[in-house]
């Protein structure tokens, strides 16, 4: 009984500490999300007639929404693995490579701090005449590799050196050492980087807008952000809300799927 009381008191204290954060999350994330959900199910903000899933059916059947969704997913499929592999390789070099390479740490972080407008201008000059989505992919990878390098390098630094010594003694070295020991040990960090990159891939609108200079880029670069932004400018809040909700479901599905994979891998 006493123990139970003590536990309840402790839990209450924890709740109290969490309250400000929960309140902030509720006010700035949960409530707006619920409101967007509500807007996606009414005719418009002014007459507010409930229409159920009519807007969802309309948006899912819209060619341009589907095009935007496919482009966004393709970006994830191509850019995320490439970026993670690249970041992993660079992190390994920085953590285990020669001194000369470790001195180049700053260079990998630099793309993050250069203003996007400058990068877009340089990219346009570099890739002018190329009618493809590759410049955008390269821009995204180049800009976001730095943060993943930082995360993975930090993860490497937390690995106990004695494990490597033991592995060396056992005869493991080189690629086998990293594949069997290093990478599995930093799997949570890799997973986090994957999630971060996926989320960032949905935020690439600024770079794309500056690169293409228009609200209507070529079809291969027309992503969900363009769809949402253009509907915002046309005051079509309903389509915008539906697209936002559907995007959140996609991201949620990816995150949940990833968590399950990670859990299974750990087992």
């Amino acid at each position: 009984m006493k123990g139970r009381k003590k536990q309840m008191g402790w839990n209450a204290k924890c709740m109290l500490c969490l309250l400000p954060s929960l309140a902030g999350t509720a006010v700035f994330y949960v409530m707006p999300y619920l409101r967007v959900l509500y807007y996606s199910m009414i005719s418009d903000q002014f007459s507010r007639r409930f229409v159920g899933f009519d807007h969802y059916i309309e948006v899912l059947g819209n060619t341009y929404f589907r095009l935007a969704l496919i482009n966004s997913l393709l970006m994830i499929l191509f850019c995320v693995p490439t970026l993670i592999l690249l970041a992993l390789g660079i992190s390994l070099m920085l953590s285990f490579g020669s001194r000369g390479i470790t001195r180049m740490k700053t260079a990998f972080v630099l793309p993050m701090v250069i203003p996007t407008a400058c990068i877009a201008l340089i990219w346009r000059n570099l890739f002018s005449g190329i009618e493809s989505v590759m410049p955008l992919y390269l821009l995204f990878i180049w800009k976001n590799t730095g943060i993943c390098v930082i995360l993975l390098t930090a993860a490497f630094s937390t690995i106990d050196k004695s494990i490597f010594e033991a592995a060396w003694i056992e005869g493991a070295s080189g690629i086998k050492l990293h594949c069997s020991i290093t990478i599995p040990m930093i799997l949570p960090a890799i997973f986090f980087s994957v999630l971060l990159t996926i989320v960032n891939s949905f935020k690439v609108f600024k770079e794309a807008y500056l690169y293409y200079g228009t609200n209507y880029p070529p079809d291969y670069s027309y992503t969900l952000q363009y769809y949402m932004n253009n509907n915002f400018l046309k005051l079509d809040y309903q389509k915008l809300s539906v697209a936002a909700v559907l995007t959140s479901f996609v991201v949620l599905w990816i995150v949940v799927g990833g968590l399950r994979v990670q859990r299974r891998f750990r087992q």
Partner: protein
Amino acid sequence: MERKSRIGLGILFAFVFTVTGCAGNAGKDVVYGQAEEVIMQGVEGLENVMSFDVDEDGCIYAGMTTQNGDVCVQTLCIADDTGSRTCYTLDEVSTPRNITFYEENIYYTVPEWLETGERQVLKRFCPERGMQETIHVFEQCSDIKKMEVMGNSLYILGTDPADIDFSTGSGDGYYDSGEILLRFDLQTGAEETVMDQDVLNFSITPAGNLMIYGHDEGGFYFSTGSGQKENFGEKQYQNLGMIDTLCACADDQYIYSSLSNHRNSTGASMGGYGKEGIIDFLEDMEFLYGDVRLRGDRLYFVDNRTDSEKKGTVLCAYIERILLSDLNRAIRLVSAEWLAETPDSQGFSMEQTALSYDSFALTVLSQDAGYDLCILNSRQEFAASIRDKGAFYPLNEIDGVTEYIESCFPFVQQAAVNENGDIWMLPVDIKINTLVYNENQCKLFSEDFAEISLEEFLYVVQKARAQEDAAYGIGAAYYTELLLSDYLMQYEKFDSEEFRGLAKLIKEEIFGCENAFSDSNAMNRIKMTGNEKAYGNVMFSIVADPSEHEVYSNVDGMRIMRVPMFTEDAESIVTCTFLCVNPSSENLNLTLEYISRLAKSMLAEEENLLLSDAGIYEESVYYADLKKVCSKGVVRFSYENELFLTDFYAYIEGRISLEEFIAEADRKIAAYLNE
């Protein structure tokens, strides 16, 4: 434990939901100022009144300049309410000003040159004895703006133009005009300074107190007191700008007008400490200036209406009752980027804010209650979206609006009413693209110039270019936009042989002919001189602005036709500026009242080009031509120019081929229409 956590979270959610849930729009009921009954009558025999006063019995004392042969005679006229009139000739060089009646004497001021320079002199005229005498010389001011009597003292607002200091100006439009408020004791002859700075105007209230309007570091303010410097009440801050006329109706209410303030462009407005209102009966007054007197339920002022047969007469308006609203804010108008056109304020206070496109979209979509009206024109990309997304308050039930819309041209009616029959906007201005041409000069090019085709017209422009002194104005970029808009009214995409022909024509004939399609040098010279008579030399020009039509209509031989377009017998493209009411506005009742008044006012305006039977169309052949063009007009709600215009200019400059432009433009338009 888990259960308690869930309960705790649930309570939190409920609390947050309640606090942040959708707030309803608590609109205020507004009682606005209006005169219950208005009778305006002029006083016979009083003309060109420069200054006047009225006693408690309604007897008017007016200072005028009358003609006696070739000689101007300064006259004091007394007209009582029975119609009887007595005039006295004054031995003065200048017209008596600041007429004030007190104890059977008429006081007035005149400027006189004295040893110390030009000074304002206070004089007294006694009608009984027929004698005038000098009472006092005001050394502190060389001009007197206003004089009123309170108790046995005269309160004088004087100024010295040499003291005007624009450098003291603040962001609210105030500058130091060097005003000084003096009190002159009529019994002792003593002059005292009541306020020597920051005072802008004053008025004596019916209760015998002194109301002043001034400015300090806090802004413009009112204050009422007994007239002694130290006895003024609390300052009531109210920004009316640099007002020109002030008349106190009560210790905390007033009538005012101001030319420098955008709040009222016609007539006058009423206000009170913390309140605002409008005056109905002064709607057709251009501006209320000079002496204004409120005696009981009668307001006296000088008729300054341009068209009035008795301009300069003192008018008397009977006001049964004046109510003021408990309102402390202006009608808030927002626009997506700055628009030059602003609607007439109708005596209401208006505040206009220009927002960026993104901010405007956010403001409308979030149902921001912080604005009352939005003003847009049909060339802006939001315009049709406001209609299509229902972001408006339907105006069908608003008094005067339906009548006004039905009196407009059919194309305006079509634009103002959506597919559900809702009147979603109030059109306030149109700019219809027309070609103004000099009939005599253009006969040299074609006998039937009004029926000229596009190709022929382009040839004419090139021929005119070859003439050194030809004055014409055709902007290449603007004409191109019109042509493309005309094309898009007929076709949904650019992939057609017709467009390929048009594009080639534009590239070779408009942009290919160096400097042909711009204002010619002669035209630029005419515009720079600003001499309206010189417009008689203009050969032709694209004109859309009503103010430009006004200039050309005064020139003999000028005619109007529709701009030669790609499509034969095309409708003329019209840009319509309109107002939309925010359905979530906090001031909805006041805003709708304003819309009603504006609609009625525009309906009565003979020069309103939106009205199909406006009197202006009967005035001349020029306007008759304009009416003909207007009757075949269409309001086109534009796509974003960005969709194709930038790429079109890239084609014109040779950076992309025509096929590339067509593919790109059609792709963008398809995305815009279908996403």
